[in-house]
């Protein structure tokens, strides 16, 4: 251990002096540069804490296997047939659920104090969030690819082909990026990671289950049907199913984009405002 405060360590003292003297103030970074720096930070965190990839690898695999074999026989008569219906939906559900980790990461930053450091920097403030979200989009892609690959092994045969799958994934990514802003806003308000988990569970559980992900809404009571129809998760699941099975309509795409734009337009400014004005 080095100690520059005692005799015989003059070199340390000189190094300290030089490091102070050689400081210069460069021009503050542009928005793109700082966003990429924050994206790099997220990548480095994945490198150092690879466990955090469980939510986009193990979690989707468990979900897909569990629901295919649990409900397949009961709902559709056979698991292979049910998989054609279920896979697009469960992909939407899984990715929607892991969007909340964006909020958890931000909440941790606040509690650990690094958040305050970022806020005293002369940077375009949203870059801290946008940089992290960009890497999250990569994580969502990984989850999607893993689930679709596993689906193929289990007998998923989409009629929309490769093109359909790419369109489906793109829709999911756009939607999830927008959805994440809700969790960043919540992450800035709640006190702890635990309360964030609880809130997200209370929102995500009904939102993903009371949708058309598992069952055809026609079997539901009419009051529940009307909720399922406006549920953004259903809207996305319908479009993704359409894309994968080659029956996508412009209307379905429009609704997904509309929901995404609406979420971003409301929650991105709220997040930035809270970020800037957090006590």
């Amino acid at each position, binding site marked *: 251990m080095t100690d520059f405060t005692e005799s015989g360590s003059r070199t340390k003292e000189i190094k300290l002096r030089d*490091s102070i003297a050689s400081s210069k103030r460069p021009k503050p970074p542009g928005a793109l540069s*700082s966003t990429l*720096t924050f994206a790099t*930070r997220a990548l480095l965190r994945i490198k*150092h804490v690879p466990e955090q990839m469980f939510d986009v690898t193990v979690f989707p695999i468990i979900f897909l296997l569990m629901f295919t074999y649990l409900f397949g026989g009961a709902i559709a008569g056979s698991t292979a047939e049910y998989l054609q219906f279920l896979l697009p939906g469960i992909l939407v559900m899984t990715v929607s659920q892991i969007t909340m980790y964006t909020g958890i990461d931000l909440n941790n930053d606040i509690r650990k104090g690094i958040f305050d*450091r970022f806020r005293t920097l002369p940077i375009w403030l949203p870059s801290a969030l946008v940089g992290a979200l960009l890497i999250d989009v990569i994580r969502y892609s990984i989850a999607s690819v893993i689930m679709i690959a596993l689906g193929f092994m289990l007998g998923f045969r989409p009629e929309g082909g490769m093109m359909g799958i790419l369109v489906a994934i793109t829709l999911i990514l756009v939607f999830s990026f927008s959805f994440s802003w809700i969790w960043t806003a919540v992450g800035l308000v709640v006190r702890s990671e635990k309360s964030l988990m609880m809130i997200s569970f209370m929102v995500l559980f009904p939102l993903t289950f009371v949708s058309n992900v598992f069952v055809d809404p026609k079997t539901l009571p009419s009051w529940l049907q009307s909720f399922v129809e406006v549920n953004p998760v259903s809207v996305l699941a319908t479009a993704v199913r359409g894309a994968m099975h080659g029956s996508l309509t412009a209307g379905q795409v429009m609704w997904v984009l509309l929901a995404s734009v609406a979420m971003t337009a409301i929650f991105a400014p709220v997040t930035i405002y809270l970020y800037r004005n957090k006590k």
Partner: protein
Amino acid sequence: MSDRYDLGYRLLRRLVIRKERVKGMGKEGQFLGTGDLAIEAKGLVKIFGKQRAVDGVDLAIRKGTVYGFLGPNGAGKTTTIRMLATLTKPDAGNARIFGHDLIDEGDAIRSRISMTGQYASIDEDLTGMENLVMMARLMGYGRKDAKVRAKELLGAFGLEEAAKRQVKNYSGGMRRRIDIAASIVVIPDLLFLDEPTTGLDPRSRNQVWAIIRALVGSGTTVLLTTQYLDEADQLADRIAVINHGKIIAEGTSGELKASVGSGTLNVQLIDAADQVPAAEILEQQLSVPVHYTRDSTLLSAQINDPGLVAGALGVLAKEGIAISDFSFGRPSLDEVFLTLTGHAAGEEAKREEEIS
């Protein structure tokens, strides 16, 4: 004066000269009209719920000095510097930082300040090197320059060997140093340090002090908070004692000490049975109240007139009261705090969280 301080001072005189040369070329001149104050605050107030965490704080802090906020947990120290660092908006009052308006010119202020929070404000999952490179990039350094700067800082802070280790595996002292290093990637004109040495061992604390002195030598203004009276005494040019959100005393450490009287006399008796007669004699001779302490052989008194002390001790000897020891000195900041607030520093609500 210690060798360390002397060395730091000499080394840094050269730095100051260099720094001034750089400044002359910059656009600093346009703010010179605001005088030589780094911080000028008027009536800062912050309210959390029903509690006035900061209750009308005025400050005038000169450029290039160390200013210490001294006070117990929950006194409002952290909240005050968070307001000054643009992290939280005051509910009333305003301040100018280098002449910039705290509320309207946040960006201009942020480009000249740096803050090291109470808890390590770095990414613990990343290595020391990665953290500093990230900070350098965020300050606007190019990719290559950022690495050079990070390496240089790691060397200067004695952290080369730990460069590739995740910060979560650092010791408390190393953490504090990497944290301060991250704050001075670009040497700020004003550095906020929130309890920079809380929880550090004496050796690490000395290292942090050396860093602070070196920075001040280069012209940086430092505003630090501390619960440690000796730290404020050692480092700060001026000290504000804060309690319940208010500044209750302000001045140099000498002024603060002088404001509570000449000093304290402690008399250690050999026989506890002498306690009462000894106290009576001292009170009579010194004409100030004498305090009994928990130790029944120890008496203490706040002295107004130091000239009376020798005579009083003489009377004790004449009356046959044996003493084993006595001390008389200028009051410590601890005593200053006790006198000003009526309780010892840190005694109040130790578990009470600092509101932030």
